[in-house]
């Protein structure tokens, strides 16, 4: 019976984990599908860069007419794209030319990796921790109940039975 329960729990877990993994895979795929068209890539890349004039705006959204920085930066981006550079090479090129603050998010290099890893790691660890604590509490509760010999539920009083019946009647058996 215990083994059967374990298998059931495992199959339930698998039923939960498989769709979740599929969803993550789909998200990963969706994220990695790069825009092949130059115009699309231009738009995508200029939204991954910052204007360095001090306006703290995304390069593609800098709305300062005649901005001394965004216009040449956008021209550089266009040149890089037409020269056949890939997205990562362009981002590295911009980081070298205009400094790391020209990129709107950190590249996946040494220390900067932690920027990307920490938030999901914290979430996953917190979730796992909560699940472990919940499991511990449940086992503790069961052990306590067994020790108290409260395996059986005491019978309902007539008034409780009546109230329960009324609730079931009024809610159409939904409670």
């Amino acid at each position: 019976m215990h083994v059967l329960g374990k298998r059931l729990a495992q199959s339930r877990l698998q039923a939960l984990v498989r769709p979740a993994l599929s969803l993550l895979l789909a998200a990963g795929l969706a994220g990695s599908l790069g825009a092949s068209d130059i115009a699309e890539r231009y738009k995508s890349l200029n939204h991954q860069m910052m204007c360095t004039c001090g306006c703290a705006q995304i390069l593609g959204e800098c709305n300062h007419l005649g901005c001394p920085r965004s216009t040449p930066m956008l021209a550089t981006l266009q040149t890089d794209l037409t020269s056949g550079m890939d997205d990562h090479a362009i981002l590295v090129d911009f980081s070298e030319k205009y400094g790391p603050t020209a990129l709107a998010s950190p590249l996946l290099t040494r220390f900067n990796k932690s920027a990307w890893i920490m938030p999901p790691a914290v979430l996953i660890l917190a979730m796992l921790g909560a699940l472990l604590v919940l499991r511990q509490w449940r086992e503790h509760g069961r052990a306590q109940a067994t020790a108290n010999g409260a395996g059986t539920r005491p019978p309902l009083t007539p008034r409780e039975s009546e109230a329960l019946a009324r609730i079931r009647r009024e809610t159409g058996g939904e409670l």
Partner: protein
Amino acid sequence: MMPAFGSYALLLALALSAYTLVAGSIALRQLATGRYGRLAPERLAETARRSGIASFVAVAAAAFALIWAAFTNDFSVSYILHHSNRDLPGPYKFATLWSGQEGSLLLWAFLLAAYGFVLRLRHRTDVKLFAYASTILAAIQLFFLMLLNFVAPPFALVGGTIPADGFGLNPLLQYPEMVIHPPMLYLGYVGFSVPFAFALGALMMRYPGEKWIQITRRWTMVTWLFLTFGIFLGAHWAYSVLGWGGYWGWDPVENASLMPWLTGTAFLHSVMMQEKRGMMKKWNVWLIFSTFLLTLLGTDLTRSGLVQSVHAFAQSSIGGWFHAFMGISFVVCAYTFWRQRAHLTADHQIESLASRESSFLFNNIILLAACFTVLWGTLFPILSEYAQGNRVTVGPPFYNRVAVPIGVFLMMLTGVGPLLAWRTGSLRSIRRNLARPVTAAGITAVLLVVWGLRPWTDEGSFYAYTVWVFAMFVAVAILSEFLRGAQVLSRQTGRNLLRSTLLLCQRNTRRYGGYIIHLGVVIIFIGFAGSAFNQSQEREMGFHDRMQIGPYTLVAESFTQDSNPNYDSEYALLDVYRHGKLVTTLTPSKRFYPASQQTETIVANHSTLAWDLYTVYAGKNADTGQPVLKIFLNPLVAWIWIGVLIVVAGTAVALAPNRITATVSVEARPRPAQGSLLPVSGGD
């Protein structure tokens, strides 16, 4: 005259707050130890309370003096000289109060004093607990008054010749929403000091039971409402004024307001577990402590220049003071927690994964993970500089990749939580409750693909698709709850479904108000997801030139200029056609403010439920002399503002007292050691 009056008022407020803190602390100490002085502790505590009330009058007088100086163009006051001018319209002269650092600190002190004033007037609710809260508030007030008196005095005078006119208000702040956005945000920021003071006070005095939560519930909710409304007013202001086509740029200062909102929201949820079942006490205490500390961090980020931000209107060296105060606050919180930790033992533990309690727990974890993500992203440039010697930018692409999935996950849990019963729910009932929402989500998923949405093409489409499918799941889950309850009431009372729904809300305002808030949040998310399909075009437009974007055709009718004493403006007159019919005329403009020598963009927007046609007049191209226009077509933005209004309405419902109480009396009897008497469902 007025500057001197204001300065003395601030000094008096400082003295009164110091007295409230010292006398209040002595009285509470005497009451706790039983060692009384010459004056009975009750009387000493009463003098502290009255002193606290008087401090409100003094701070209000100082705030009045600064506003008076703005309205009377008293440019001998340095703050007024730098933030106002003669031709500034009246409402913006009022807004001068919070347009700079000194004024903002004064606004903070004033609002804190106002909250303290109301708290001290209502002390009869629970004299001892309120005395603790009043003393803690006085300590916070003392810090701000010290800053105002010694570090950033708002009434500092101009040395030498006084200029005939002021340098004007930052043009970005000359917008109607700026007259209400900062006070709303500050009401939220400052307001969290009150539940913090109650929580810390209750812990210090080892308050018996959970009644303090009921006492502070309204304070917390009102504060949360102010912060929520303030954040979205700020988003609307950014959308209308900054002219980049968006409403949220993940700027450090925006993030600073979001962090206490996230922990405050987590607190509002998990405190229900403490109130109802005596659980999560330690967790809740740290949540409210963190919320308070994050409000301080927010002000620090805004004012100290710790991080680079487009919002950091006033940067100075007050950062050190804030760091010290945050450090002291943390030490006090940690010490009190350590001393009184035995008082925070939980009465119960979570019994099942499929229960309302565990949904609250996971909701809390996700909210805190979101808060950590925002904090991490905000502070990472500083860490990066420390670790590798150069600053990096952590902007929207980072948050869109990391925080958005967390937000989507949170939204899904919003739908699952209400479907679970307290303590434990049977798989059968969960399956039954999930049937409708899952079916609706499935149909939506198919319909969206049929309609032409391809979630596999790019990241934006994928997130939008996921959000809309989950939004349908959550909305149907919430509406099913209303329907289920209304059907029961309809059967009981014979009223129609609509009237039964109304009655339902009146009977349990907290529960159904909460559902309305969740529905509002779902609608906000639907609006957010629309941003994946934003379109924009920028081009030079001469007279009668046309531009096509989405279903709209824009025709440049004219470009003209206007002038008033406060600013000169250039604007475009654009006729907007849809299917050949004139829909509206838009007039985006650009203003130049001579006093501050700054320009400002005024966006013109035609908003519908489907999309916003958002137009920006960028000025004239210096080479060609042609006007340049930037046009955006932003889908579903109106849903965000509608969602916010629903959140506000839901909070108002949740704040209202239950008008009719449904009672089922069952004879009390000894509780068995395990197992529930009756399956419990409902509640909040």
